[in-house]
């Protein structure tokens, strides 16, 4: 069974008189342990595709199976449960809670999973150690550099042992050196922890770190290359 299987999904936005097809009949599968980059120019539908894979958005047509479960049949709260336990998100803008220490940001997913307080702390500390932020647990996001903030976000994404990590332009706000460090961290998580990673980017330098690249153009999936 594939980890992710989408069959003929489309996303149509109704813009008054014209319908905008952000995604047009896309089918794809992702296997466990893969490291997929999604590329394409802006407006090609790559972010829409990732949002649907991440259960943040739902397709207008088509079906999406996650670990064999038809996601289209799930309620709002069940989707929240999936986002909590199966998927970790990393965004371009970090999306950390401001005025909240790094440690508590990382604890947040476990809070919504009902994990006991001392267990939360322990696991959050471990996750921060994995991303190399030991000693910065009590810093607030505005006291951390962009790269460090993104590491906090990655710690938050992996802390619940979610099998999938989805990243939307994770290096978009970072300089080249930091971007490489972050991408190496993704490679390590994919290689050592076996986390399936799906990454949206428009830079081929970044996509180079992945094992496989899906290219989008005008809402269609135009190529699917596996790196040798």
């Amino acid at each position: 069974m594939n980890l992710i299987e989408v069959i003929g999904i489309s996303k149509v936005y109704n813009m008054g008189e014209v319908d905008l097809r952000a995604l047009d009949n896309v089918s794809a599968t992702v296997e466990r342990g893969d490291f997929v980059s999604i590329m394409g120019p802006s407006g090609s539908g790559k972010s829409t595709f990732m949002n649907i894979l991440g259960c943040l958005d739902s397709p207008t047509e088509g079906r999406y199976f996650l670990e064999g479960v038809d996601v289209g049949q799930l309620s709002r709260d069940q989707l929240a449960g999936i986002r909590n336990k199966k998927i970790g998100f990393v965004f371009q803008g970090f999306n950390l809670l401001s005025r909240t220490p790094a440690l508590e940001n990382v604890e947040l997913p476990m809070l919504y999973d009902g994990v006991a307080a001392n267990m939360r702390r322990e696991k959050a500390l471990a996750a921060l150690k994995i991303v190399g932020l030991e000693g910065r647990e009590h810093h607030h996001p505005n006291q951390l550099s962009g790269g460090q903030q993104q590491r906090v976000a990655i710690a938050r994404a992996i802390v619940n042992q979610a099998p999938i990590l989805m990243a939307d332009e994770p290096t978009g706000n970072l300089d080249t050196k930091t971007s490489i460090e972050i991408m190496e961290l993704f490679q390590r998580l994919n290689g050592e922890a076996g986390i399936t990673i799906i990454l949206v980017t428009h830079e081929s330098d970044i996509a180079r770190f992945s094992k496989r690249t899906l290219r989008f153009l005008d809402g269609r999936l135009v190529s699917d290359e596996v790196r040798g």
Partner: protein
Amino acid sequence: MIDLAWTTRIALRALRVNKMRSALTMLGIIIGVGAVVAMLAIGTGASKQISAQIASMGSNLIMVLPGSSTSGGVRMGGGTQMTLTFDDARAIEGCPSVSDVAPVHNGTAQIVYGNVNWSTQVQGTTPAMLNVRDWPISAGRSFTEDDVRSATKVALIGQTIVDNLFGAIDPVDQIIRIKKIPFRVVGVLHAKGQSPGGLDQDDTILVPITTAQKKLFGTSFPGMVRIIMVKARDANALETAEPEIRGLLRQRHRLTLRQEDDFTIRNLTQMMQVTEQSSRVMTLLLGAIASVSLVVGGIGIMNIMLVSVTERTREIGIRMAIGAKTWDIRLQFILEATILSLAGGIIGIILGVAGSLVLSLAAGWTTSVSPLAATLAFVFSGFVGVFFGFYPAYKASLLNPIDALRYE
């Protein structure tokens, strides 16, 4: 279920960020709760004062007064005709709804002790008076039925008399002169304070009714009394006692159906109860008006929470993306609203209590903060928080995660 301690901490943090705004929002609730507590304290204080006065008068009290006399077509006031007798009083004791009866024959007299003198109300009565008026003895003893039979010169004196004539001296067994006649003080009446009419109830002397009739206030109608005080068995008997007494007295006075009563029956307790009830209604009214401001405070909370939800759309999006469920989001905002209103409630109660204390000290009003009213105000303020926090929380929970995340 979400960790409440953690959520509370997050809520407090969010409220601390906008200190001024939180404080102003709370102010609405503070004023509301403070007003409710203070108004109820004033109202309850007034009712309590009236209840205390009723109790001091004696409970379940009925007064029977003689009727008016008519002289050449001119009707005189109540009590101008001596129609009630000592025997009427004895007969009323037989009514089933009545527990105690005390006839009174009174007048004003000059009292002398040593070189001090004082003018006061002297009431000739029977020992039953003490039961009728719920009037205990604070020193010495009461006079007895024997004293009434043999018209002994003994007296029970009120606290005001003690203060004015005796000062620090123990009055029991001292001899005082009432209208120059020596009386032995056998006991002191317990202080009662003001009557509902504002008269000093302790400025009085009780003597056996026979002594009063024969030695102090001689009358051309022997055996006549000015007032008969009656105590009904209980509050329910109060209703039936009145017609019983009326029937009995009409029969004893041989009144035909066409003749008016030659006496008046006044149900003092019932009159006072009406006053008490109206003060209770007043309390409720004051409380109701004050709770309007509490509701206005609640609307203030709702307003601010709606602003807060809009401002924090992105935060809500983040929380949803990492797995917050509908009720996780709702609880967070309801909790914030409830913390605001409960904190406002506590401060409001403190201010309300302080305000009513200031009122009672400065204006001399009797106020009484009942723990029940304070608890109710607190619970109600919590309810206001939950109620007015729900809509903003509901709105937050309906946001689409992806739209919320993209919100700038």
